Protein backbone atom coordinates (compact mmCIF):
# COMPACT_ATOMS: atom_id res chain seq x y z
CA UNK A 1 0.00 0.00 0.00
CA UNK A 2 1.18 3.56 -0.70
CA UNK A 3 0.46 6.33 1.75
CA UNK A 4 1.07 10.05 1.79
CA UNK A 5 3.39 10.69 4.68
CA UNK A 6 3.82 13.70 6.89
CA UNK A 7 6.74 13.23 9.27
CA UNK A 8 6.16 16.48 11.19
CA UNK A 9 8.69 19.05 12.41
CA UNK A 10 10.24 17.04 15.25
CA UNK A 11 11.11 14.21 12.91
CA UNK A 12 13.31 16.56 10.91
CA UNK A 13 15.34 17.46 13.99
CA UNK A 14 15.20 15.96 17.46
CA UNK A 15 13.41 12.78 16.35
CA UNK A 16 15.31 12.09 13.14
CA UNK A 17 15.80 8.50 14.28
CA UNK A 18 12.04 8.05 14.21
CA UNK A 19 11.71 9.29 10.63
CA UNK A 20 14.61 7.20 9.35
CA UNK A 21 13.51 4.04 11.11
CA UNK A 22 9.85 4.51 10.15
CA UNK A 23 10.68 4.77 6.46
CA UNK A 24 13.04 1.79 6.65
CA UNK A 25 10.62 -0.44 8.53
CA UNK A 26 7.65 0.37 6.30
CA UNK A 27 9.81 -0.39 3.25
CA UNK A 28 10.85 -3.73 4.79
CA UNK A 29 7.17 -4.51 5.28
CA UNK A 30 6.42 -3.90 1.63
CA UNK A 31 4.53 -0.63 1.91
CA UNK A 32 5.58 2.83 0.89
CA UNK A 33 5.50 6.25 2.51
CA UNK A 34 5.45 9.02 -0.09
CA UNK A 35 6.36 12.27 1.64
CA UNK A 36 3.68 14.92 1.26
CA UNK A 37 5.34 17.72 -0.65
CA UNK A 38 5.83 21.01 1.17
CA UNK A 39 3.83 20.08 4.28
CA UNK A 40 3.75 22.63 7.08
CA UNK A 41 3.71 22.53 10.88
CA UNK A 42 0.34 21.29 12.14
CA UNK A 43 0.48 23.50 15.23
CA UNK A 44 1.43 20.89 17.84
CA UNK A 45 -0.20 21.60 21.19
CA UNK A 46 0.66 25.24 21.03
CA UNK A 47 -1.47 26.87 18.37
CA UNK A 48 -4.87 25.97 19.83
CA UNK A 49 -3.82 27.92 22.89
CA UNK A 50 -3.39 31.12 20.87
CA UNK A 51 -5.90 30.81 18.05
CA UNK A 52 -8.74 28.41 17.46
CA UNK A 53 -9.01 29.17 13.73
CA UNK A 54 -5.29 28.86 13.15
CA UNK A 55 -5.32 25.51 14.94
CA UNK A 56 -7.77 24.28 12.30
CA UNK A 57 -6.32 26.08 9.28
CA UNK A 58 -2.68 25.00 9.65
CA UNK A 59 -3.36 21.25 9.58
CA UNK A 60 -6.07 21.84 6.96
CA UNK A 61 -3.46 23.12 4.51
CA UNK A 62 -1.75 19.73 4.73
CA UNK A 63 -5.05 17.94 4.26
CA UNK A 64 -5.82 20.08 1.21
CA UNK A 65 -2.44 19.13 -0.28
CA UNK A 66 -2.84 15.46 0.61
CA UNK A 67 -6.32 15.26 -0.85
CA UNK A 68 -4.91 15.95 -4.29
CA UNK A 69 -3.01 12.65 -4.21
CA UNK A 70 -6.04 10.52 -3.32
CA UNK A 71 -3.99 8.62 -0.78
CA UNK A 72 -4.52 8.36 2.96
CA UNK A 73 -2.34 10.69 5.00
CA UNK A 74 -0.12 8.95 7.54
CA UNK A 75 1.78 10.73 10.24
CA UNK A 76 4.15 9.33 12.82
CA UNK A 77 3.74 12.15 15.33
CA UNK A 78 0.87 11.82 17.79
CA UNK A 79 0.35 15.54 17.99
CA UNK A 80 0.21 15.95 14.20
CA UNK A 81 -2.17 13.00 14.12
CA UNK A 82 -4.56 14.55 16.59
CA UNK A 83 -4.48 17.97 14.92
CA UNK A 84 -5.11 16.55 11.46
CA UNK A 85 -7.77 14.12 12.64
CA UNK A 86 -9.51 16.85 14.62
CA UNK A 87 -9.99 18.99 11.52
CA UNK A 88 -12.16 16.28 9.95
CA UNK A 89 -13.96 15.65 13.20
CA UNK A 90 -14.73 19.31 13.76
CA UNK A 91 -15.88 19.89 10.22
CA UNK A 92 -18.53 17.26 10.85
CA UNK A 93 -19.53 18.43 14.31
CA UNK A 94 -19.35 22.20 13.94
CA UNK A 95 -21.19 23.21 10.77
CA UNK A 96 -20.31 26.95 10.93
CA UNK A 97 -16.63 26.02 10.82
CA UNK A 98 -16.79 24.82 7.22
CA UNK A 99 -17.52 28.22 5.73
CA UNK A 100 -14.85 29.93 7.78
CA UNK A 101 -12.24 27.36 6.90
CA UNK A 102 -13.17 27.61 3.23
CA UNK A 103 -12.64 31.35 3.39
CA UNK A 104 -9.24 31.00 5.06
CA UNK A 105 -7.99 28.32 2.68
CA UNK A 106 -9.28 30.25 -0.33
CA UNK A 107 -7.06 33.15 0.72
CA UNK A 108 -4.16 30.74 0.20
CA UNK A 109 -5.58 29.41 -3.06
CA UNK A 110 -6.55 26.07 -1.51
CA UNK A 111 -9.67 24.05 -0.84
CA UNK A 112 -10.43 21.03 1.28
CA UNK A 113 -13.47 18.75 1.17
CA UNK A 114 -13.06 17.20 4.62
CA UNK A 115 -12.60 13.71 3.22
CA UNK A 116 -8.89 12.88 3.40
CA UNK A 117 -8.46 9.96 5.78
CA UNK A 118 -5.88 10.54 8.52
CA UNK A 119 -3.91 7.66 10.00
CA UNK A 120 -1.35 7.22 12.74
CA UNK A 121 1.70 5.21 11.72
CA UNK A 122 0.99 2.84 14.64
CA UNK A 123 -2.47 2.15 13.22
CA UNK A 124 -1.01 1.42 9.79
CA UNK A 125 1.58 -1.02 11.13
CA UNK A 126 -0.74 -2.77 13.59
CA UNK A 127 -3.92 -2.88 11.53
CA UNK A 128 -3.12 -2.52 7.81
CA UNK A 129 0.15 -4.39 7.65
CA UNK A 130 -0.73 -6.50 10.65
CA UNK A 131 0.95 -8.40 13.43
CA UNK A 132 1.43 -11.53 11.34
CA UNK A 133 3.31 -9.75 8.55
CA UNK A 134 5.53 -8.14 11.16
CA UNK A 135 6.20 -11.50 12.82
CA UNK A 136 7.04 -13.07 9.45
CA UNK A 137 9.72 -10.50 8.81
CA UNK A 138 11.67 -11.10 12.06
CA UNK A 139 15.32 -12.10 11.65
CA UNK A 140 16.80 -11.39 14.98
CA UNK A 141 15.80 -12.98 18.23
CA UNK A 142 14.53 -10.48 20.79
CA UNK A 143 13.08 -13.10 23.11
CA UNK A 144 13.14 -12.23 26.76
CA UNK A 145 13.56 -8.52 26.15
CA UNK A 146 11.17 -6.67 28.45
CA UNK A 147 9.74 -3.66 26.64
CA UNK A 148 7.45 -0.97 28.07
CA UNK A 149 4.79 0.01 25.50
CA UNK A 150 4.37 3.69 26.27
CA UNK A 151 1.63 5.25 24.16
CA UNK A 152 1.37 8.68 25.76
CA UNK A 153 -1.88 10.56 25.63
CA UNK A 154 -2.61 11.91 22.17
CA UNK A 155 -1.70 8.70 20.36
CA UNK A 156 -5.09 7.30 21.31
CA UNK A 157 -7.01 10.16 22.88
CA UNK A 158 -9.58 11.51 22.80
CA UNK A 159 -11.08 9.64 19.87
CA UNK A 160 -9.70 6.13 20.34
CA UNK A 161 -10.04 5.78 16.60
CA UNK A 162 -7.97 2.64 16.10
CA UNK A 163 -7.21 1.43 19.62
CA UNK A 164 -8.54 1.66 23.17
CA UNK A 165 -8.20 5.16 24.62
CA UNK A 166 -7.48 3.92 28.17
CA UNK A 167 -5.46 0.76 27.79
CA UNK A 168 -4.51 0.36 24.14
CA UNK A 169 -2.88 -2.87 22.98
CA UNK A 170 -1.61 -2.36 19.43
CA UNK A 171 1.98 -1.72 20.50
CA UNK A 172 1.85 -4.61 22.95
CA UNK A 173 0.86 -6.93 20.12
CA UNK A 174 3.70 -5.67 17.92
CA UNK A 175 6.21 -6.13 20.74
CA UNK A 176 5.01 -9.72 21.07
CA UNK A 177 5.13 -10.20 17.32
CA UNK A 178 8.87 -9.56 17.30
CA UNK A 179 9.41 -12.00 20.14
CA UNK A 180 9.88 -9.54 22.99
CA UNK A 181 7.74 -9.26 26.12
CA UNK A 182 5.43 -6.30 26.77
CA UNK A 183 6.26 -5.07 30.28
CA UNK A 184 3.09 -4.73 32.39
CA UNK A 185 2.67 -0.99 32.66
CA UNK A 186 -0.50 0.66 33.89
CA UNK A 187 0.67 4.12 32.90
CA UNK A 188 0.69 3.41 29.19
CA UNK A 189 -1.35 6.48 28.36
CA UNK A 190 -0.43 8.73 31.27
CA UNK A 191 0.76 12.11 30.00
CA UNK A 192 4.51 12.84 29.85
CA UNK A 193 3.86 16.51 30.49
CA UNK A 194 4.42 17.67 26.93
CA UNK A 195 5.77 21.20 26.84
CA UNK A 196 5.54 21.62 30.63
CA UNK A 197 9.10 20.30 30.63
CA UNK A 198 10.03 23.63 29.06
CA UNK A 199 7.54 26.04 30.57
CA UNK A 200 7.06 24.64 34.08
CA UNK A 201 9.99 22.34 34.49
CA UNK A 202 9.40 21.15 38.06
CA UNK A 203 6.02 19.73 37.07
CA UNK A 204 7.36 18.19 33.87
CA UNK A 205 10.19 16.57 35.81
CA UNK A 206 7.85 15.05 38.36
CA UNK A 207 5.59 13.51 35.69
CA UNK A 208 8.54 12.04 33.81
CA UNK A 209 10.19 10.78 37.02
CA UNK A 210 7.04 8.87 37.90
CA UNK A 211 6.86 7.30 34.45
CA UNK A 212 10.50 6.25 34.57
CA UNK A 213 10.21 4.93 38.11
CA UNK A 214 7.25 2.76 37.10
CA UNK A 215 9.29 1.35 34.22
CA UNK A 216 12.08 0.02 36.45
CA UNK A 217 12.62 -3.67 35.81
CA UNK A 218 12.08 -3.33 32.09
CA UNK A 219 14.93 -3.30 29.53
CA UNK A 220 13.67 -0.36 27.51
CA UNK A 221 10.69 1.84 26.71
CA UNK A 222 9.23 2.24 23.23
CA UNK A 223 7.08 5.15 22.10
CA UNK A 224 5.41 6.40 18.94
CA UNK A 225 5.49 10.09 19.77
CA UNK A 226 8.52 12.37 19.36
CA UNK A 227 7.53 14.52 22.34
CA UNK A 228 7.19 11.54 24.68
CA UNK A 229 10.49 10.12 23.48
CA UNK A 230 12.31 13.40 24.08
CA UNK A 231 10.85 13.94 27.54
CA UNK A 232 11.60 10.40 28.67
CA UNK A 233 15.05 10.20 27.08
CA UNK A 234 16.67 13.59 27.60
CA UNK A 235 16.37 14.25 31.33
CA UNK A 236 17.40 10.96 32.89
CA UNK A 237 20.71 12.22 34.19
CA UNK A 238 19.05 15.17 35.91
CA UNK A 239 16.32 12.96 37.32
CA UNK A 240 18.89 10.49 38.65
CA UNK A 241 20.58 13.31 40.54
CA UNK A 242 17.25 14.55 41.90
CA UNK A 243 16.04 11.15 43.01
CA UNK A 244 19.42 9.93 44.19
CA UNK A 245 19.09 6.69 42.21
CA UNK A 246 20.68 5.93 38.88
CA UNK A 247 18.11 5.74 36.13
CA UNK A 248 19.30 4.26 32.88
CA UNK A 249 16.42 3.40 30.62
CA UNK A 250 16.88 3.41 26.84
CA UNK A 251 13.88 4.98 25.11
CA UNK A 252 13.40 3.79 21.54
CA UNK A 253 10.88 4.61 18.89
CA UNK A 254 8.72 1.59 18.14
CA UNK A 255 10.10 1.53 14.62
CA UNK A 256 13.67 1.35 15.97
CA UNK A 257 12.72 -1.76 17.92
CA UNK A 258 10.99 -3.33 14.91
CA UNK A 259 13.99 -2.43 12.77
CA UNK A 260 16.33 -4.20 15.18
CA UNK A 261 14.13 -7.28 15.01
CA UNK A 262 14.23 -7.13 11.22
CA UNK A 263 18.02 -7.22 11.37
CA UNK A 264 18.56 -3.60 10.34
CA UNK A 265 21.76 -2.02 11.57
CA UNK A 266 22.20 0.53 14.31
CA UNK A 267 23.14 3.07 11.62
CA UNK A 268 20.06 2.44 9.50
CA UNK A 269 17.93 3.13 12.57
CA UNK A 270 19.98 6.12 13.79
CA UNK A 271 20.17 4.50 17.21
CA UNK A 272 23.29 6.50 17.98
CA UNK A 273 21.10 9.62 18.17
CA UNK A 274 19.19 8.40 21.20
CA UNK A 275 20.44 10.21 24.29
CA UNK A 276 20.49 7.31 26.75
CA UNK A 277 22.90 4.95 25.00
CA UNK A 278 21.40 1.76 23.62
CA UNK A 279 24.74 -0.08 23.48
CA UNK A 280 23.95 -2.16 26.58
CA UNK A 281 20.66 -3.19 25.05
CA UNK A 282 22.36 -4.23 21.82
CA UNK A 283 24.90 -6.31 23.73
CA UNK A 284 22.05 -7.98 25.58
CA UNK A 285 20.46 -8.83 22.22
CA UNK A 286 23.62 -10.54 21.04
CA UNK A 287 23.56 -12.84 24.04
CA UNK A 288 19.92 -13.92 23.87
Amino acid sequence: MRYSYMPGCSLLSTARGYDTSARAVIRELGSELVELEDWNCCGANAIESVSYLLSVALPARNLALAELSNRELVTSCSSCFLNLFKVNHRLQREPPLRGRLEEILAAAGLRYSGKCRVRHLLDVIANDIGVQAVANRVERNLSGLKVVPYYGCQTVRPYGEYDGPYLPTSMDRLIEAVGAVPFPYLWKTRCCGGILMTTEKAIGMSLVSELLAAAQGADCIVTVCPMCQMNLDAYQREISVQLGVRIHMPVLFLTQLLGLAFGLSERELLLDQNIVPVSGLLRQLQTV
Partner: protein
Amino acid sequence: MAEKTFNLTRDMLDHTFADLVTPDREKLLTCIQCGTCTASCPTAYAMDYTPRQLWRLIQLGLKEEVLTSNSFWLCTACYLCTLRCLRGIACTETMSTLKRMAVSMGMEKLSSSARFYEAFRDTVRRHGRLHEVELMATFFGRAKRLGAMGYTRLGFTLWRKGKVSLDASAVNIRGLDQIEAIYRKVEELEAKP
Protein backbone atom coordinates in the same frame (compact mmCIF):
# COMPACT_ATOMS: atom_id res chain seq x y z
CA MET B 1 -7.02 21.21 48.54
CA ALA B 2 -7.52 24.10 50.95
CA GLU B 3 -10.96 25.62 51.18
CA LYS B 4 -11.51 29.11 49.96
CA THR B 5 -14.29 31.45 51.03
CA PHE B 6 -15.69 34.12 48.75
CA ASN B 7 -17.61 37.19 49.76
CA LEU B 8 -19.74 37.22 46.67
CA THR B 9 -20.92 40.52 45.32
CA ARG B 10 -23.03 40.85 42.24
CA ASP B 11 -20.33 42.55 40.19
CA MET B 12 -18.04 39.56 40.66
CA LEU B 13 -20.44 37.36 38.72
CA ASP B 14 -20.52 37.32 34.95
CA HIS B 15 -23.30 35.10 33.68
CA THR B 16 -22.13 35.28 30.10
CA PHE B 17 -18.83 33.71 31.10
CA ALA B 18 -19.85 30.07 30.70
CA ASP B 19 -21.13 30.85 27.22
CA LEU B 20 -17.80 32.24 26.15
CA VAL B 21 -15.47 29.59 27.48
CA THR B 22 -17.09 26.33 26.59
CA PRO B 23 -18.52 25.06 23.31
CA ASP B 24 -21.66 23.87 25.09
CA ARG B 25 -22.85 25.89 28.07
CA GLU B 26 -25.85 23.66 28.75
CA LYS B 27 -23.53 20.70 29.13
CA LEU B 28 -21.20 22.52 31.46
CA LEU B 29 -24.18 23.36 33.64
CA THR B 30 -24.87 19.64 34.05
CA CYS B 31 -21.53 19.03 35.78
CA ILE B 32 -22.36 17.05 38.90
CA GLN B 33 -19.05 17.77 40.63
CA CYS B 34 -18.13 14.10 40.74
CA GLY B 35 -14.43 14.87 40.46
CA THR B 36 -13.60 12.26 37.85
CA CYS B 37 -11.85 14.94 35.80
CA THR B 38 -9.68 15.96 38.73
CA ALA B 39 -8.85 12.37 39.57
CA SER B 40 -7.74 11.85 35.96
CA CYS B 41 -5.66 14.97 35.70
CA PRO B 42 -1.86 14.53 35.88
CA THR B 43 -1.30 18.16 36.92
CA ALA B 44 -4.30 18.83 39.18
CA TYR B 45 -2.00 18.59 42.19
CA ALA B 46 -0.26 21.79 41.15
CA MET B 47 -3.35 23.76 40.11
CA ASP B 48 -4.83 26.67 42.10
CA TYR B 49 -8.22 25.13 41.38
CA THR B 50 -8.65 21.54 40.32
CA PRO B 51 -10.60 20.96 37.10
CA ARG B 52 -13.75 20.11 39.08
CA GLN B 53 -13.50 23.30 41.11
CA LEU B 54 -12.83 25.33 37.99
CA TRP B 55 -16.08 24.17 36.34
CA ARG B 56 -18.02 25.21 39.42
CA LEU B 57 -16.45 28.67 39.38
CA ILE B 58 -17.34 28.98 35.70
CA GLN B 59 -20.93 27.96 36.40
CA LEU B 60 -21.12 30.68 39.00
CA GLY B 61 -19.61 33.21 36.64
CA LEU B 62 -16.55 34.01 38.75
CA LYS B 63 -14.64 35.13 35.72
CA GLU B 64 -11.68 36.91 37.23
CA GLU B 65 -11.04 34.21 39.80
CA VAL B 66 -10.91 31.66 36.97
CA LEU B 67 -8.88 33.65 34.49
CA THR B 68 -6.20 34.66 36.98
CA SER B 69 -5.68 31.09 38.19
CA ASN B 70 -2.82 28.89 37.01
CA SER B 71 -5.09 25.88 36.45
CA PHE B 72 -5.63 25.88 32.70
CA TRP B 73 -2.00 26.85 32.05
CA LEU B 74 -1.01 23.51 33.51
CA CYS B 75 -3.34 21.57 31.22
CA THR B 76 -1.26 19.48 28.82
CA ALA B 77 -4.25 18.54 26.66
CA CYS B 78 -3.97 14.86 27.58
CA TYR B 79 -7.76 14.50 27.10
CA LEU B 80 -8.29 12.03 29.93
CA CYS B 81 -10.83 14.25 31.67
CA THR B 82 -12.76 14.77 28.42
CA LEU B 83 -12.80 11.07 27.75
CA ARG B 84 -13.98 10.15 31.23
CA CYS B 85 -16.46 12.90 32.03
CA LEU B 86 -19.78 11.15 32.36
CA ARG B 87 -21.59 14.31 31.29
CA GLY B 88 -19.68 14.61 28.04
CA ILE B 89 -18.29 18.02 28.91
CA ALA B 90 -15.56 19.30 26.60
CA CYS B 91 -13.13 19.85 29.47
CA THR B 92 -9.89 20.00 27.46
CA GLU B 93 -11.27 22.36 24.85
CA THR B 94 -12.52 24.62 27.61
CA MET B 95 -9.01 24.71 29.09
CA SER B 96 -7.63 25.90 25.71
CA THR B 97 -10.28 28.59 25.43
CA LEU B 98 -9.38 29.83 28.90
CA LYS B 99 -5.75 30.17 27.81
CA ARG B 100 -6.75 32.33 24.85
CA MET B 101 -9.13 34.43 26.88
CA ALA B 102 -6.69 35.05 29.73
CA VAL B 103 -4.10 36.36 27.28
CA SER B 104 -6.56 38.57 25.43
CA MET B 105 -7.63 40.11 28.74
CA GLY B 106 -4.09 40.46 30.05
CA MET B 107 -4.81 38.21 33.02
CA GLU B 108 -2.40 35.37 32.49
CA LYS B 109 -0.83 34.10 35.66
CA LEU B 110 1.69 31.73 34.11
CA SER B 111 3.03 34.02 31.46
CA SER B 112 5.84 31.60 30.58
CA SER B 113 3.36 29.26 28.89
CA ALA B 114 1.67 32.12 27.06
CA ARG B 115 5.04 33.39 25.78
CA PHE B 116 5.94 29.88 24.67
CA TYR B 117 2.78 29.48 22.59
CA GLU B 118 3.25 32.90 21.00
CA ALA B 119 6.87 32.21 20.15
CA PHE B 120 5.72 28.96 18.57
CA ARG B 121 3.07 30.74 16.51
CA ASP B 122 5.57 33.33 15.28
CA THR B 123 8.24 30.80 14.35
CA VAL B 124 5.77 28.82 12.28
CA ARG B 125 4.64 32.00 10.54
CA ARG B 126 8.22 32.78 9.55
CA HIS B 127 9.24 29.33 8.35
CA GLY B 128 6.10 27.25 7.83
CA ARG B 129 7.66 24.68 10.11
CA LEU B 130 9.00 24.67 13.60
CA HIS B 131 12.64 25.48 14.16
CA GLU B 132 13.31 24.35 17.71
CA VAL B 133 16.46 26.38 18.31
CA GLU B 134 14.77 29.59 17.18
CA LEU B 135 11.70 28.75 19.25
CA MET B 136 13.75 28.23 22.40
CA ALA B 137 15.80 31.37 21.83
CA THR B 138 12.67 33.46 21.30
CA PHE B 139 10.90 31.88 24.24
CA PHE B 140 13.70 32.33 26.74
CA GLY B 141 14.22 35.87 25.47
CA ARG B 142 10.56 36.86 25.84
CA ALA B 143 9.83 34.98 29.02
CA LYS B 144 12.98 36.45 30.59
CA ARG B 145 13.34 33.09 32.18
CA LEU B 146 16.15 31.75 34.23
CA GLY B 147 16.73 28.17 33.32
CA ALA B 148 17.86 28.93 29.82
CA MET B 149 21.27 27.63 30.88
CA GLY B 150 19.92 24.17 31.56
CA TYR B 151 18.44 24.11 28.08
CA THR B 152 21.65 25.39 26.55
CA ARG B 153 23.33 22.30 27.93
CA LEU B 154 20.61 20.06 26.56
CA GLY B 155 20.73 21.98 23.27
CA PHE B 156 24.45 21.28 23.06
CA THR B 157 23.86 17.56 23.58
CA LEU B 158 21.23 17.57 20.84
CA TRP B 159 23.50 19.48 18.48
CA ARG B 160 26.42 17.13 19.16
CA LYS B 161 24.16 14.17 18.42
CA GLY B 162 23.32 15.79 15.10
CA LYS B 163 19.69 16.27 16.13
CA VAL B 164 19.32 20.02 15.67
CA SER B 165 20.72 22.51 13.19
CA LEU B 166 21.30 26.16 13.96
CA ASP B 167 20.13 27.52 10.62
CA ALA B 168 16.44 28.39 10.95
CA SER B 169 15.92 29.12 7.25
CA ALA B 170 16.84 25.50 6.50
CA VAL B 171 13.33 24.46 7.51
CA ASN B 172 11.53 27.01 5.29
CA ILE B 173 8.79 25.59 3.13
CA ARG B 174 8.08 26.80 -0.40
CA GLY B 175 4.49 27.76 0.33
CA LEU B 176 5.38 30.49 2.83
CA ASP B 177 3.09 32.90 0.97
CA GLN B 178 0.20 30.50 1.63
CA ILE B 179 1.09 30.36 5.32
CA GLU B 180 1.19 34.15 5.47
CA ALA B 181 -2.18 34.36 3.68
CA ILE B 182 -3.66 31.93 6.23
CA TYR B 183 -2.31 33.89 9.21
CA ARG B 184 -3.62 37.18 7.78
CA LYS B 185 -7.07 35.82 7.05
CA VAL B 186 -7.32 34.32 10.52
CA GLU B 187 -6.32 37.63 12.08
CA GLU B 188 -8.94 39.39 9.99
CA LEU B 189 -11.70 36.95 10.96
CA GLU B 190 -10.73 36.98 14.63
CA ALA B 191 -10.74 40.78 14.73
CA LYS B 192 -14.44 40.77 13.80
CA PRO B 193 -16.67 40.86 16.86
